[in-house]
């Protein structure tokens, strides 16, 4: 692969202009799989030095700069503990430490890979995307958007809530892509359930979570029902990694286990 021109904009605004002016310009987030995904590039925009790697902890949210690496996130004192380490775990499950040192959260979001582990965890953490021009948008909405838009992702904003969370990745080896991944959170009885690599891109099981959210306290029976609801509302398919029925079976078992884990104490499970 060849790169003709490299731009190193001096400000976020310049970076935005560079990518707005040229619809083929490629933003450089981490470059982990660059040789796999790209052929020749006319213009590459390097986003280093713009402060996008910062992680800022506020009162209600934590703002993760788009260029924060997966390792930055996994080792961050606040993020590594949030939702029982769910987000950190999703970062740790992407390749090895050397890739985690270059791959970025923003790259994972903008890549929008169907196999992404990060997107699944971020969905369950109710993440919001902040852009240079566009209004902030919930990640869930962004992933399902009908109209594409070209903008510079500045940060991923995650509400600081005290809740339980679990991330699970089912893969053949530690370095493999997911056959299926899932993340669930429970914040005082309010659930989010995300399933990715079905093999489609990560989605929230909204109906299942909404029904669960109306029940207090939640029983094993309610959780079993929620799993059935989630399996009904989410689409599953086949590819080289697994057939649809096996993915459903994995989702059924692992969602049940994950929901129990965020709902009950050890003894109750």
């Amino acid at each position, binding site marked *: 692969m060849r790169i003709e021109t490299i731009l190193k904009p001096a400000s976020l605004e310049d970076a935005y202009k560079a990518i707005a002016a040229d619809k083929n310009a490629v933003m450089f987030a981490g470059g982990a799989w660059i040789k796999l995904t790209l052929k020749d*590039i006319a213009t590459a925009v390097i986003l280093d030095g713009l402060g996008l790697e910062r992680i800022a902890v506020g009162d209600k949210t934590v703002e993760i700069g788009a260029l924060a690496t997966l390792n930055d996130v996994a080792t961050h004192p606040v993020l590594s503990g949030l939702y029982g380490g769910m987000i950190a775990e999703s970062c740790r499950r992407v390749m090895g430490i050397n890739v985690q040192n270059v791959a970025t959260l923003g790259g994972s979001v903008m890549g929008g890979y169907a196999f992404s582990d990060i997107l699944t965890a971020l969905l369950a953490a109710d993440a919001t995307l902040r852009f240079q021009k566009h209004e902030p948008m919930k990640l869930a909405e962004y992933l399902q958007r009908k109209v594409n838009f070209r903008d510079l992702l500045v940060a991923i904003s995650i509400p600081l809530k005290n809740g339980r969370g679990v991330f699970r990745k089912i893969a053949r080896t530690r370095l493999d892509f997911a056959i299926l991944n899932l993340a669930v959170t429970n914040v005082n009885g309010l659930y989010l359930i995300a399933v990715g690599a079905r093999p489609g891109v990560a989605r929230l099981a909204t109906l299942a979570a909404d029904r669960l959210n109306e029940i207090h306290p939640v029983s094993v029976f309610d959780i079993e029902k929620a799993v059935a609801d989630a399996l009904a509302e989410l689409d599953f398919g086949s590819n080289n990694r697994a057939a649809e029925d096996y993915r459903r079976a994995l989702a059924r078992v692992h969602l049940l286990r994950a929901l129990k884990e965020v709902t009950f104490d050890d003894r109750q499970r």
Partner: protein
Amino acid sequence: MIVNVDVNGRLRSFDVPPGAFLLDVLREAGYLSIRRGCDTTSCGICTVLLDGKPVPSCSYLAIRAEGRKVTTVEGIPEEAAKLARHFGEEGADQCGYCNPSLALAVYALKQTRPKATDEEIRLWLVGNLCRCSGYQSQLVAIKRYLEERP
């Protein structure tokens, strides 16, 4: 484009095409310890330390290293020799192709987590593949190296 990099404590200036990757630039400059394994950041062979952190140089644009510190195994000869002694004692070295990159990754682990458990060692090095050893003898050797105190 000119890129200025501190390689193993020496300031170097490289004239590179815009799309040049760190691996190719360093090998071209004679740092032959860094080698190509896969080109898709999947094997760990091309690992260098960038400001002390292991990164895959095969896919890291050289110009992004501007002003940063790059360490290859040529920059940590004493640590590499120490690790080699433990590898030798355990028979953990076979073809050796992955060993310079492994030495860098293990050295970085020692800086970050000198008392790493077996599981932490495995996790830290999971992106460094080896097809020869079966991994177990390497784990023992790496533990011995980490336990070694200066």
